[in-house]
């Protein structure tokens, strides 16, 4: 047993965009070169004509997965509340989308679906019966800037962070305990253990800032200000800086949103894990060994290993988007990044 390795095909989004790799090529890469079987997908990236794929697509998918003896771990599903444009989707309509996604996931052989952290808990509860019926587990994502345990972080009042419910993980655990259902749980994303901005995103922010010195100011002073105050201070010190809130939020990161030890108590509720990363670089003292300098993998993986977690960590490479603003010569090699990530997962997961 032990921790299992997988890949979210999200990691190869750029290769798919440029038509260098199809989803079949990606699965073969996972099988042949990473020597593992876990596959995760983004529904609206892989499923042609979502949400109405052809019978041919479904058969082709299942057949290809069978050919290589792969495991369909988690399908990432979405909630676009403006789909109908003449009204904001009601919670009951949101549940209909989730139920339909669950049925689709079941047809493609997936064990789990991952709704996002902004999906209300009552929407998930409304879809739970469908999840039971089709034997697909619902794993709600714990994504940065969420903590695992509430009360450990100050919640900002602006930006995306303000719209999230910091008690989210507790609410899902309460739902699972109250219903006794094994079909609802959590998908922690390793981004919650990111403690500093990635170099690739710092470089991107500086290339696009009217005043790159304002980015340096954020990086140097982020420990001294809560995020809300940082917006204010920045406007005072650098009038007209033009840095958007998302960038300020990313550059201000100086402490992980979750404490690594908090993962121990939620292990029974973990459906699968997103292995988020941005930039795998060689560890100077360890040739052939790689790390993401912005994310703590070592501590949480130690806790997962010691406490018997035997589910999947699926690589989720996200560094490509910060390197697409220049010529093709600056594009990152996703395949190589994921191979390095799996070197780390093997090593920290205790596989020889």
């Amino acid at each position: 047993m032990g921790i299992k390795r997988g890949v979210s095909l999200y990691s190869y989004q750029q290769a798919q965009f440029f038509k260098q790799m199809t989803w079949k090529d990606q699965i073969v890469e996972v099988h042949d070169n990473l020597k593992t079987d876990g596959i995760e997908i983004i529904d609206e990236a892989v499923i042609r004509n979502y949400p109405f794929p052809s019978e041919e697509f479904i058969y082709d998918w299942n057949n290809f997965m069978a050919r290589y003896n792969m495991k369909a771990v988690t399908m990432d599903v979405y909630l676009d509340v403006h789909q109908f444009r003449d009204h904001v989707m009601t919670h009951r309509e949101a549940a209909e989308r989730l139920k339909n996604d669950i049925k689709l996931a079941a047809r493609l052989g997936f064990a789990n679906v991952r709704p996002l952290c902004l999906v209300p808990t009552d929407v998930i509860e409304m879809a739970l019966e469908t999840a039971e019926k089709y034997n697909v587990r619902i794993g709600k994502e714990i994504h940065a800037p969420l903590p695992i345990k509430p009360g450990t972080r100050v919640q900002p009042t602006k930006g995306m962070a303000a719209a999230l419910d910091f008690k989210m993980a507790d609410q899902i655990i309460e739902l699972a305990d109250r219903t006794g259902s094994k079909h609802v749980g959590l998908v922690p994303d390793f981004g919650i253990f990111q403690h500093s901005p990635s170099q690739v995103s710092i470089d991107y922010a500086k290339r696009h800032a009217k005043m790159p010195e304002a980015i340096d100011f954020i990086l140097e002073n982020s420990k001294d200000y809560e995020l809300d105050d940082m917006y204010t201070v920045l406007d005072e010190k650098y009038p007209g800086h033009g840095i958007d809130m998302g960038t300020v939020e990313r550059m201000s990161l100086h402490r992980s949103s979750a404490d690594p030890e908090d993962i121990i108590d939620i292990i029974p509720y973990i459906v699968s894990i997103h292995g988020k990363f941005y930039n795998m670089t060689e560890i100077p003292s360890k040739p052939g060994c790689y790390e993401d300098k912005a994310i703590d993998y070592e501590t949480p993986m130690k806790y997962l290993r010691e406490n018997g977690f035997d589910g999947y960590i699926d690589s989720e490479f996200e560094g490509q988007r910060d390197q697409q603003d220049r010529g093709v010569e600056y594009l990152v090699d996703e395949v190589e990044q994921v191979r390095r990530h799996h070197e780390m997962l093997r090593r920290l997961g205790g596989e020889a």
Partner: protein
Amino acid sequence: MFDQFLIRKDSLSNVYENGKAVGFKFAVRIADYRGCFLSLHNGYYINCDGTEYPKSLQKFEINGKAPRDFEEIKTCVWEHWNYDDEGFVHVAKEGGLKPGKHTIGLQQSILAQYGYMPWDEEWVKNPPEPGSGAGAGKTAAICTFELELQEGGC
């Protein structure tokens, strides 16, 4: 995302009707890592050689159908723009563009979200104006492209 690759470099051409140039078009990809319900597509901020071309002058061609304006696109609530697929943005401009190089500033607006946000009701009544950054999805910057007008077109 895909900042420098949202417009295909060799895709700019004039659009002709009855032998007369009535505008121009270029090929775009979605500025996201996933496709979207077509209804969510809310048009573009387009600045060509210093002139802005608002949403009312734009049409979008996708899924093998004739170009549709964004009032019609808004009603395509079950149709999907697949992540892999290229679409064409058509812009009305009498006489089209002159031969040679053109500079296009572009921001795509897609009202894709991860769930409920405080501005939801407002967006139903007043969708964000492309170019403001709101509703700009994963590429909030206005990206600039130097494009050579291609011969032909239709």
